[in-house]
Each structure stands twice: as structure tokens, then as C-alpha cells.
């Protein structure tokens, strides 16, 4: 066994044998994501392409590569990561706007892939989305009233004059005057358009909303307004959010838990405050230290962790731990072993072989040592 050539073992692809969310095991998760993979085929690999001078290696982008996570009722899960890491693909797959390559999304314990197309339309009532670019996500040829009325009509929630009444109500809820019902999206500011998008998402009375970078396109002052609106609506309507963003300050403000994504994989999940105050992963530390501190003296005094290099291409991600090319703490084993997401502290999960529940602080681990390695290989051999 020990003589066998060391293989690259993808432990994180295995169904999670460790409880991901035993913090709040008592309640059923609203959304469960189980080993979800979304691979986009870029072509190549066809026999004939060799003659055409192309590559005969099939190329795919692994936008989401084996993610498992639960989202609990009433929770806001923040999802952060650099652009291109697969955040949006994950969000859209939860709403089945993208069909996953493999893995499952469970809503109230039922797999979405089990629903037929027409059943799925009924389920969509409960799962809604807020988009990043509010000007692209609103049909330029429909009035605001028609846009917000669309889900009301699609799900036959109201009829006739009651539709308009409902639209007016929703507009007031998100802080727009119902006098604007007959106007077109281009007549509004970015913040107002985002309110329209939120009103539309609320129209079907959903339980769960994916907010895909909802504030990234807005001015800072407007960002705060929109976040406050989202928080108020969450409290009033018992909503559950998946809040996707690359803005760490925003995510910290609005989230109960934060998940960090890197090249298609989750690398760390923890309660929002914990992940900011005591991040475990070197990548998370770098992300957090990239946020400037508002106090100029403190900013000058602090020494941010600067990562070397760019995000590697998701077409050919690095072997083993995807982060090893940029990680200051990497050892040889990191190139070989895909680290599983392990509960290092209660409710705090991280995917790194160099830390373990016994030695959670990577800076304090003896050089070259990998206390998490045993656990990683254990879960592989247990397969």
C-alpha cells in the first residue's frame, strides 16, 4: 500500500460524512446542496478535431466542483469569492436555471431534479432571485407595473384589479411610490431599479431568495439602503437568503454565516463574526486583509496579506488543493491531496490539510507538518 504511487485523491467529492451543520441540527434545512457539480463543456476532445488542428483533449470549466452545504430557514448565508470562482453558477443552479452536471439541490427535503418541468414552475414560487445588474434584469419594454405583476399573474395569485392593488402594495413595501407603476425601467435610478427587482422577487411570496451580487452595481450610500431594505424584508417575511457578493463588508453586515469559495469549491464556512475575527484558511485571511480599514492610521500600520499571482484558470485548476499555487503555507502534500471540508471548531469548517481541530491555527503548526492529513486520508479510505 505504501509503495503504491501517490494518487491525487479528491476527498471533497465524496458525499459528506461529517455533519455540515450540526450547529443547528434541530431544524430541517430549507435548502440542502449535496455534492453539486456544474461543469461547462468547452468542446474539444472530438476525434475529428485532431484533423482540424485542434486539441483532442476535452476541455471543461468546473464552475462548481462538488459543493455540499445546508441553508437553514430564516438564515442568511453569505457566499464570497473572487470573480469567476463559480458563485453565480451555484446560485443559479439552486434555482435550476442551470442544470447541474451532477449532485442535488434539495428544497424542503425534495430534490429539485425530481420535479417535472411543470411541477418545477410551481416550486419556483418559493424560490426567487434578485439580480446584480438591475437594468439588464428588467425587460426594457415593460412598465414597472407589468414587471412586478408578472409573478402574480404567472402563479395566478390574484386576478383583475386585485393584481394592480397587489403591485401597488409591493411597490410601497420596497419604498417606491405606486404612482410610478406606468413608468419604464430606464426612467429610474440604479437603486430604484434594484427595488423594483426586489419587489418582483417578493411578489410570489417566496421562502428563499438568491441575491446574486445585488448591491455590487450600486453606489455605497445606495448599497446601505438596499441592504437595510433586504434585512427588514427578511425579518417581516421570514425569508431565507443566499447572499452572493465579493464585497466582504456587505456580506459581514447581512449574513449569519459566511461561506468562502475558491475555484469551484467551498474552502471555509463559519458564523459571520467568527470568519472575520478568526479566519482559519490562508485564502480567507488574504480576502479579509484586502478590505481597507476606514481609519487612515490603522490602515497605514496594518500589514495586509498579499497573494501572489492571479486566480488560476478554472479550465485547468491546480491539482490537489486548488489554492496551493498561491498559498504561503503550502507543503508538497498540498499538490496531491484535495482537502475535505472538516469541522475544525464547532460550526467552523475549513478545507486544509495543514490544520486540524487540535491545531487550528496554521501559523502555529510546525513547519512541514500536516495535522489534518490523517483526517483527510481517513475519510478517503473510509470510502
Amino acid at each position, binding site marked *: 500500500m505504501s509503495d503504491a504511487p501517490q494518487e491525487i485523491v479528491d476527498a471533497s467529492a465524496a458525499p459528506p460524512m461529517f455533519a455540515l451543520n450540526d450547529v443547528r441540527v434541530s431544524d430541517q434545512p430549507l435548502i440542502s446542496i449535496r455534492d453539486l457539480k456544474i461543469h461547462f463543456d468547452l468542446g474539444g476532445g472530438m476525434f475529428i478535431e485532431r484533423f482540424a488542428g485542434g486539441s483532442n483533449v476535452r476541455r471543461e470549466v468546473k464552475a462548481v466542483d462538488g459543493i455540499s452545504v445546508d441553508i437553514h430557514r430564516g438564515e442568511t448565508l453569505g457566499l464570497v469569492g473572487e470573480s469567476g470562482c463559480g458563485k453565480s453558477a451555484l446560485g443559479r443552479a439552486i434555482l435550476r436555471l442551470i442544470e447541474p452536471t451532477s449532485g442535488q439541490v434539495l428544497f424542503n427535503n425534495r430534490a429539485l431534479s425530481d420535479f417535472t418541468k411543470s411541477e418545477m*414552475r410551481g416550486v419556483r414560487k418559493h424560490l426567487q432571485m434578485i*439580480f446584480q445588474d438591475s437594468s439588464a434584469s*428588467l*425587460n426594457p*419594454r*415593460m412598465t414597472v407595473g407589468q414587471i412586478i405583476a*408578472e*409573478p402574480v399573474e404567472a402563479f395566478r395569485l390574484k386576478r383583475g384589479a386585485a393584481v394592480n392593488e397587489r403591485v401597488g402594495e409591493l411597490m410601497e413595501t420596497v419604498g417606491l411610490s405606486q404612482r410610478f407603476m406606468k413608468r419604464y425601467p430606464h426612467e429610474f435610478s440604479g437603486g430604484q431599479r434594484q427595488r423594483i427587482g426586489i419587489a*418582483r422577487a417578493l411578489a*410570489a411570496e417566496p421562502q428563499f431568495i438568491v441575491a446574486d451580487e445585488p448591491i455590487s452595481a450600486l453606489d455605497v450610500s445606495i448599497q446601505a439602503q438596499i441592504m437595510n431594505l433586504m434585512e427588514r424584508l427578511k425579518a417581516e417575511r421570514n425569508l431565507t437568503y443566499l447572499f452572493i457578493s465579493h464585497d466582504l463588508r456587505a456580506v459581514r453586515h447581512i449574513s449569519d454565516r459566511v461561506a468562502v469559495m475558491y475555484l469551484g469549491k467551498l474552502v471555509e464556512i463559519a458564523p459571520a463574526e467568527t470568519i472575520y475575527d478568526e479566519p482559519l484558511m490562508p485564502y480567507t485571511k488574504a480576502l479579509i486583509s484586502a478590505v481597507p480599514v476606514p481609519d487612515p492610521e490603522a490602515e497605514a500600520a496594518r500589514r495586509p496579506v498579499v497573494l501572489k499571482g492571479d486566480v488560476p484558470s478554472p479550465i485547468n485548476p491546480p491539482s490537489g488543493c486548488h489554492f496551493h499555487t498561491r498559498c504561503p503555507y503550502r507543503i508538497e502534500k498540498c499538490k496531491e491531496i484535495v482537502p475535505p471540508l472538516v469541522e475544525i471548531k464547532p460550526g467552523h469548517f475549513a478545507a486544509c490539510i495543514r490544520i486540524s481541530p487540535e491545531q487550528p491555527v496554521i501559523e502555529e503548526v510546525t513547519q512541514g507538518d500536516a495535522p489534518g492529513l490523517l483526517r483527510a486520508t481517513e475519510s478517503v479510505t473510509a470510502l
Partner: protein
Amino acid sequence: MNRLAIFGLVVVGILVIVALFAPLIATHDIGATNLGDRFMSPSAEHFFGTDATGRDVFSRVVYGARISLRVGLIVVAVSAFIGTVVGALAGYYGGWIDSIVSGYVFNVFLAFPGLLLAIAMVAFLGAGLNKLILALCIIGWVGYARVIRGQVLKVREYDFVQAARALGASDMRILFRHVLPNAIQPLIVQASLGMAGAVLSEAALSFLGLGVPPPAPSWGVMLEEARDLATLSSAPHTLIFPGIAVALSVLAFNFIGDGLRERLDPRQRSR
């Protein structure tokens, strides 16, 4: 709008007025032959002169506008409708539907020279205005289908279409309320160019004796009747006036089409 497009609009406007009020504008009965007045040159009595059987050319050109516009409008409306439906379904559903429709059907139709196909079809169906219109529709719809398919492919990836899907809108609702209204613009350009094509094809087929049968005052028929050398040398006006009518109207529709294209496509505006 550029000047040529305005010129086009004016000419088409005149054409429409002439066609609508043809009975008021025409000075003579278009069927009345008068062998004593053959090949008369343009005069105050006969603005465009008379033809081989003494019929008033001006009145016949005026009524010819009716035939040309009628053929153009029906052909464009029918082919645009069929093309839109086929192109939208192919573009929206994609997959095997699209690969059959755009991969085979489009290419087969486009591989034929259009006019030749129309000639073959009229030869097969027989001459006549309705058959001519049918033949022109059969060769015409593919152009619209191709334009719409391309647009639908683009628009269906827009965020608001994704949003509508997430909101639970049905496929038909997404297609008709979200995709098509935002995909239809280039169709207007295609339609005005299509008008020019239809008018020209009608004249060409009638000229060849494959369109509207002779007594009817089609511009193509008038050209055909004036095409022998004796007529050309002794009474060129019988050829010139219907010829100008065809050329002007085709030019006008083309100018409008180009003007619209330029206006709708900002990348071409800075020329």
C-alpha cells in the same frame, strides 16, 4: 435619419397615396384601347403617352402601383410572420429543433437562387397574382427566420429572460412577452428591404410572363409589352415610365431599409 432615407419615405408616401387613390388620379380607363391613338408621345391629354393598343400609360402606371404594393405587402407580411414563428421556435428551443431547422431547412432554401425557385414554382403552379405571391412567400420567409433566430439566440440569454424563468413564467410567456419584443427590431429593416425585393421580383416574373397575366397593368407586364426593337425606337416612353416606376420604388424601399439599419445599429452610425 439621413437624406436618402427621407427621400425614400417621400417616394413611398407618394406611392401609397397613388395606389390608394388610383381611380381619382388615373385620367383614362386602363383597359380602353384606341387603335387610332397608338404610340402617341407624352402630351397634355396622355401624360406618359399611349402604348401599342392606344391605352393611356400614365393611368396604367398609376394602377400598377396597386399591384406592386399589394404583392409587396402580402409577401412581406406572410413571410415575416412565418419566418418569425419558425425562427423564434428554433432559436428559443435550440437543440435538435434548431439543428434541423437552421442546419438543413435554412441552408436548403438559401442555396437556391430565389428568383429561379420562384420561376420553377410558378411554372409548376401556373401563372397568376396569387400564385406569384405564394411563390415569393415560399422563397422569402427564410431570410426573416434567420434574422429572428439570431436575435432570439442573443436575447434569450439576457438577464431579464433568466429572471422571467426564475419567476415561473411559462415558455410561451417568456417567448412572446420577453424575447420577441426585444428581438423584433432588425425585422423592420429586413421587411423594408423585403418590400423592395418583392416589388422587383413581381416585375421580373411578370416581365417573363410568369406573374400577373397581360391585361392587368403590372409594371412588369408593361415592360414586357414594350420590349421589341420597333417599339423601343419609335415609342421609348412606353418602356421608360413603367421602368422608372419600378426603379424608383425599389430604390425608395432600399433607402428606407438602409436608413433604418443605420439608425438601429449604432456601430454603423459614425460613417
